[in-house]
C-alpha cells in the first residue's frame, strides 16, 4: 500500500504528459496545415501533387513496381551481408603474411565507399553489357544488383570491422588459452559478440540500401520509381511520385523504428548488465 500513492501520481503525470503532447501536436500541425492550404497557389500544388484520382490510379501500378525493389533489395542484402563480412575479416588480418589480402580489402573499401552508387551502376550496367564479352550476362538486374553489392558491402564491412574491434582482446585471449585456434576463436567467441553489437548500424545501412534500389531503374528495370516516372511524365502530374514515396516510406520507416527499438533494448541490457 505504501507504494500505491507515488505510483498513482506517476501514472497521472504520465497521462498528463501524453495529453499535453497530443494537444500541442494537434495545434502545431493544424496551424501549419491551415497555412499551407490557404496559401496562394495551393490549388495548383494540390492538382499537380495530390490528385486523388491520379493517386488511386497510380498506387497499384507503383506497388507492382515496388515488388521489384523488394526483390532487388533482398538478393542484394544477402550478398552484401556475406561479402562484407569476408571483407571485414580480410581487413582485420594482422599477420604480415596476409598483408596483400588486407591491402586488397583496404583499397576495395576506400574505392567503393568513395564513389557514388549511381556512377558504379552506370559503369557496370551500361558498360559491361556493351563489351559483349562471352560468358558475361547483359541482364541489367544482375549488374544493378552487383553494383549495389559492391558499394554497400564497403560500408557494411566497416560496420562489421567496428564490431570486431569492439570485442575486448581479453575475450580472444581467454578463448586461445583454452586451446581454441584463431579461426575457432573468431567463429565462436569474437564474431557472435561483434554481430550482436552492430545489428542496429547494420539495419541502418539496410534502410539506405532499400532506398538505393531505386537507382537500378536507370538501367531500365521498371520498379516503383521508374513506374511513377513513366506515369508522371505522361501528363506532368507528380502524384505518382508521391505514391511511390509513400510506399518507400512504408518499407523504410518500420525498419527505422525497428532499429530504434533494438538500440533501446541493447542499451537497457547493457545498463542491466553493468548494474
Amino acid at each position, binding site marked *: 500500500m505504501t507504494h500505491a500513492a507515488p505510483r498513482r501520481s506517476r501514472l497521472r503525470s504520465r497521462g498528463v504528459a501524453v495529453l499535453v503532447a497530443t494537444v500541442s501536436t494537434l495545434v502545431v500541425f493544424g496551424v501549419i496545415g491551415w497555412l499551407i492550404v490557404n496559401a496562394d497557389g495551393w490549388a495548383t500544388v494540390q492538382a499537380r501533387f495530390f490528385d486523388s484520382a491520379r493517386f488511386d490510379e497510380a498506387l497499384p501500378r507503383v506497388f507492382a513496381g515496388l515488388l521489384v525493389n523488394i526483390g532487388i533489395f533482398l538478393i542484394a542484402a544477402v550478398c552484401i551481408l556475406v561479402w562484407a563480412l569476408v571483407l571485414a575479416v580480410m581487413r582485420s588480418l594482422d*599477420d*604480415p*603474411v596476409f598483408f596483400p589480402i588486407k591491402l586488397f580489402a583496404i583499397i576495395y573499401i576506400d574505392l567503393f565507399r568513395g564513389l557514388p552508387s549511381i556512377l558504379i551502376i552506370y559503369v557496370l550496367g551500361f558498360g559491361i553489357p556493351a563489351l559483349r564479352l562471352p560468358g558475361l550476362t547483359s541482364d541489367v538486374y544482375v549488374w544493378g544488383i552487383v553494383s549495389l553489392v559492391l558499394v554497400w558491402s564497403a560500408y557494411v564491412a566497416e560496420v562489421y570491422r567496428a564490431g570486431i574491434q569492439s570485442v575486448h582482446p*581479453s*575475450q580472444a*585471449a*581467454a*578463448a*586461445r*588459452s*583454452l*586451446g*581454441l*585456434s584463431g579461426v*575457432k576463436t573468431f567463429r*565462436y*567467441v569474437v564474431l*557472435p*559478440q561483434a554481430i*550482436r553489437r552492430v545489428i542496429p548500424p547494420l539495419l541502418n545501412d539496410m534502410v539506405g540500401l532499400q532506398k538505393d534500389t531505386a537507382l537500378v531503374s536507370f538501367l531500365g528495370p521498371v520498379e516503383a520509381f521508374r513506374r511513377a516516372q513513366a506515369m508522371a511524365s505522361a501528363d506532368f502530374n507528380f502524384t505518382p511520385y508521391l505514391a511511390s514515396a509513400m510506399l518507400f516510406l512504408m518499407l523504410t520507416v518500420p525498419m527505422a523504428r525497428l532499429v530504434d527499438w533494438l538500440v533501446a533494448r541493447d542499451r537497457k541490457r547493457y545498463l*542491466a*548488465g553493468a548494474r
Partner: protein
Amino acid sequence: MNAGGTPVSAGVPASAEVPVSAGVPVSASVSAQAPGLGGEALRIEGLRKSFGDHLVLDGIDLVVAEHEVVCLIGASGSGKSTLLRCVNLLEPIDSGRIVVQGAEITASGVDVDRIRRSIGIVFQAYNLFPHMSVIRNITLAPVKVLRLPKAEAEARAEELLRRFGLLDKRDAVPDRLSGGQQQRVAIVRALAMRPSILLLDEITSALDPVLVAEVLSVIRELAESGMTMVLATHEMGFARDIANRVAFLEGGRIIEEGPPGQIFSAPRDERTRRFLDRVIEAGRL
C-alpha cells in the same frame, strides 16, 4: 618480423650454459625442488620479455614440481602476470625457454593450440564469454577442441559445477552472476580441459572482500586434490597458507624464493623485507 604466424619468437635461446637435453631435469642449480612432490611439471629458464623498451621479465628461472603450489608475490608491475601469460604463450617471449611436462613449448614449430590445452589459465577479470550460458562457456573448448561429444562434455562440466556448488547456475548468463560466481565458473572452464597445470593471475583482485573467500576455498580444494598451480596473488595470508613455495618478484626478476614460512617470517633479501613491510603496513598480512 614474425614469420609464419607463430607467436613464439624465441630469439637466441639463452641456453649456452644450460645443458639442453630435451627437458629432462638436469640443472639442479636452477631451483631446489620441494620435497615430497612429484616430477617436474614446469621449468622456466632465462626467460626475458620486454614490451618495447620496457624490460618486464629480466631472466626468470623457476621450476615447479607436479602437485606443487607456487605463489608469485610482488608489487604491481613486478612481472607476475606477464610471467603467467608467457607460460600460456599468450605473450611471445624474447629469449629463454619454457618446458612443460618435459616438452619445450617455446621451441619453434610447436603446436601452440595443443600446448594451451594442457595449461589452464584464469584471469583477474574472469573473461567469461558474455554471449554464452555458463554450461556453454565450460563446454565450448572440450567440444570444439577436444572433440568430446556434447553430452559427455556437459556431464563433465556438471560434475565440476556440482563440486563447486554452482550447478544451479548451469544455464545462467555470466552477467547475472556475482563476481565470485563468475570467477568460480572461469576456474571450472579451465579445469574442464583437464590441464596438467593451472595458472591463476590475481584471480581475487577484482572481487569484493566478501567474495574472495568463496574463490579461495575453490583453490584450496584444488590444492588438496593435487593440482599443480602457479598463482600470482596479493592475498599474502592465503599465499602463506596454501603455497608450497613462494617466489618474490621485483623488476622482472625472482629476488627470493623459498617455503612460505621462511619468506614471510625470515626473508633473506632486503628487498623482500621492504616489500613485506609495506604489505604489513597496508594491513594485508
